[in-house]
């Protein structure tokens, strides 16, 4: 859990208060100004009422150039960021033709499949010629090609479950599956920091939702006991079904979930476990099979495993893996299967080829190399950042590492300074994180080399000093005599 230092909390509150007051002031003037000029929508209520878009207009627009930066090449280790300029104080941003080559620390490219790959890309282009870019119909009507069947078998094998079903988009997978497997009279217990797609799916299902404290199995047990004892809200009858939803790696914290304890608790109380491995599949574990392999949990204990292909496999889409009866039932009833266009054939081919590379079935050991590299890279980077005094979250072995910023003014400062030095980072603020806990999130990839990481460390350290986010004391530097010999240069000493 993140504990924010007292002084930092005070200054952050103060900054937000100042921005809020300033925004209200400007809104007041805008209201007077609008009252002078009549608008042309008489009789209609405004499309955004009152404070709904206050945050967008007054706070977000000021730093809009830190988000949504367009790129002009594949999101590989180094990529081209398009420069933008604004004539009206960041309200609208216009593209220029200039691009700058930056180090990519923001894309979800864990195994380096984002760019054209020597094994995958020729096969993908072949499948594009044979099957065309889209099947133009739903899975049940005419959209199931041999590629789709092969893909489902491949995925089921890789994950370690009897059967799998594949959808065209990860977000829709969660939103459309949860309503199908649980309805009114069921109970969903989800982690407090679950992703928006799970929240949407849970709301759309009509079941009762309870939340347990992030990654705390003891609290989960308490909530389960309470809920089972009380039963359904008004009738107090026993629940029809209980599903506990957790994620493999939480994308905003970089933590792994405590899966063994959670699975044992669920077994004790006979609840189903739904594991969302969006970030962890392919990226952690000895052979890339995700959190279950890393933490030593048997895949038969997790009832439903869900994941997406966008992060480690460089494609798009989502899957659900489970027992054969479950998958059969889903194919009959799930709206995402019956109504939505099926996954695009080149994307499916990319997934199949990348799984083959990871498992080593293409004949080379590139898969094992990539997995080892990403583990080394993430552990190295995390330990170095912690030594420099940054507050870094996340467990070892996880390729996602957030650096805490807290103060709203530091968000654009960090982002813009890093971009000036050709390092592209991602900064996240409200509403994806709680209001006080803004952070910069770094995603390491297997295609980063040691030199890239060293350059990134240097730049981040410089900018960190400038912006003032080294909240923890840095470890004392070894080899002090080296530093005395080069007094003017700020370098980083590594062991």
């Amino acid at each position, binding site marked *: 859990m993140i504990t924010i230092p007292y002084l930092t909390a005070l200054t952050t509150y103060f900054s937000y208060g100042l921005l809020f007051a300033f925004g209200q002031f400007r809104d007041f003037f805008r209201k007077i100004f609008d009252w002078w000029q009549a608008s042309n929508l008489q009789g209609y209520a405004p499309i955004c009422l009152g404070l709904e*878009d206050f945050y967008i207009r007054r706070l977000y627009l000021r730093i809009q150039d830190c988000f949504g930066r*367009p790129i002009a090449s594949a999101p590989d280790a180094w990529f081209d960021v398009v420069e933008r300029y604004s004539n009206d104080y960041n309200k609208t941003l216009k593209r220029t033709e200039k691009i700058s080559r930056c180090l990519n620390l923001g894309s979800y490219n864990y195994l380096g499949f984002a760019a054209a790959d020597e094994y995958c890309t020729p096969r993908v282009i072949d499948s*594009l010629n044979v099957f065309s870019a889209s099947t133009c119909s739903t899975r049940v009507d*005419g959209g199931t090609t041999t590629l789709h069947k092969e893909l489902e078998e491949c995925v089921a094998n890789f994950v370690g479950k009897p059967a799998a079903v594949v959808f065209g988009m990860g977000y829709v997978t969660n939103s459309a599956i949860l309503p199908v497997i649980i309805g009114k009279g069921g109970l969903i217990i989800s982690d407090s920091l679950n992703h928006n797609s799970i929240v949407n799916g849970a709301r759309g299902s009509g079941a009762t939702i309870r939340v347990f404290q992030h990654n705390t199995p003891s609290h989960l047990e308490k909530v389960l006991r309470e809920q089972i004892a009380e039963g359904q809200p008004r009738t107090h009858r026993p629940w029809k079904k209980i599903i506990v939803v957790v994620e493999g790696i939480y994308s905003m914290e970089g933590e792994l979930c405590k899966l063994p304890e959670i699975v044992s608790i669920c077994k004790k109380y006979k609840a189903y476990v739904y594991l969302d491995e969006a970030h962890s599949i392919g990226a952690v574990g000895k052979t890339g099979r995700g959190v279950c392999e890393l933490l030593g949990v048997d895949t038969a204990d997790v009832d439903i495993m869900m994941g997406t292909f966008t992060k480690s496999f*460089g494609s798009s889409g989502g899957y659900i893996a489970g027992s054969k009866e479950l998958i059969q039932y889903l194919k009959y009833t799930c709206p995402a299967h019956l109504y939505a266009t099926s996954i695009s054939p*080149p994307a499916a081919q*990319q997934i199949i080829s990348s799984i083959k590379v990871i498992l080593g079935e293409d004949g080379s050991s590139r898969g094992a190399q990539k997995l080892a590299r990403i583990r080394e890279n993430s552990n190295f980077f995390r330990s170095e950042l912690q030594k420099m005094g940054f507050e870094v979250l996340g467990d070892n072995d996880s390729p996602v590492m957030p650096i805490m910023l807290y103060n709203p003014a530091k968000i654009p400062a960090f982002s813009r300074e890093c971009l000036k030095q050709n390092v592209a980072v991602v900064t996240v603020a409200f509403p994806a994180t709680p209001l006080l806990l803004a952070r910069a999130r770094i995603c390491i990839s297997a295609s980063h080399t040691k030199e890239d990481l060293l350059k990134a460390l240097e730049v981040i350290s410089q900018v960190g000093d400038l912006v003032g986010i080294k909240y923890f004391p840095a470890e004392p530097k070894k080899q002090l005599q080296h530093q005395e010999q080069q007094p003017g240069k700020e370098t980083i000493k590594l062991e």
Partner: protein
Amino acid sequence: MEKYGVGSCGPRGFYGTIDVHLDCEARIANFLGTTDSILYSYGLSTMFSAIPCFCKKGDIIVVDEGVHWGIQNGLYLSRSTIVYFKHNDMESLEKTLEKITAKNQRAKKLRRYIVVEAVYQNSGQIAPLDKIIKLKEKYRFRVLLDESNSIGVLGHSGRGLTEYCRVPIEKIDIVTASMGHALATEGGFCTGSARVIDHQRLSSSGYVFSASLPPYLASAAITAIDVLEQNPDLTSKLKENIAILWKGLSDVQGLSLASHPESPIVFLRLEKSAGSMKGDLRLLEDLANHALKEESVFVVVSKRSTLDKCPLPVGIRMFVSAAHSESDLLKACSSVKKVASVVLKDHIHP
């Protein structure tokens, strides 16, 4: 694909915006004549993300009963008050609008919407947009139009229902569409005024929290629109094909045509139902299987999920394409007639 790889590896806010996305959005806005548009990575998620973005608890939404599941889910997630009106029936719509505005005098603060589809997926009817616009202006509602099956099909240059009914597109507040139908790629888009689009860039969950569209699909969309603009005879060929199929199928025994004569989805309904929806489905499946095995004609039966609340009857759907030739279509008509007379002989009116 060699330049950008396959996936885009990130949501739109975090370096997932590739310049082809921006080009595609500009092209779509250009083609339809609006100020801006926003791309979603999946057709189904377009509707169920756009609706909760603008409709919150307490708003009133009047919607046709035959809309597809994506819209129904979006309405459920928005927690607004939902009122259904009879499928494609303008008098029922007027009565409902009258009832709502009469009841609610303090309706100044409430936002009111009408949601319709241009060509209904579940029945093939076409919504009479000019009448809807008149009602909208009289009662002050905003219109949300889903043009998934009408982009590229209706209107002489394929700009959709607004061109077909000769309504200027500025009168429609929000237009959404899925590109998986006529434009032959995946994904969806939403277009409207600049205020509407900008609001969605931060508050639409399917846009902010999900990875962006793979870049090769965005380029495919741009090329599709280019082709459509340069060859307007594609739309006229499609219309001819639809007319041929309609004429050929108007005298099939046991089935009746239930869709609009100009809709690209030709919907055949059973004249005498077999009792329950399950029974109907079984009969139709039988028909479809026979058609495929014996005649090599591939038609589909409309499927319903358990979550779908649509009360319209099920039937056989045939999708017409501009690539079909006249002989193909005539063969299809004769096969369907033959198979229907075999399978449905107990269910035909004497």
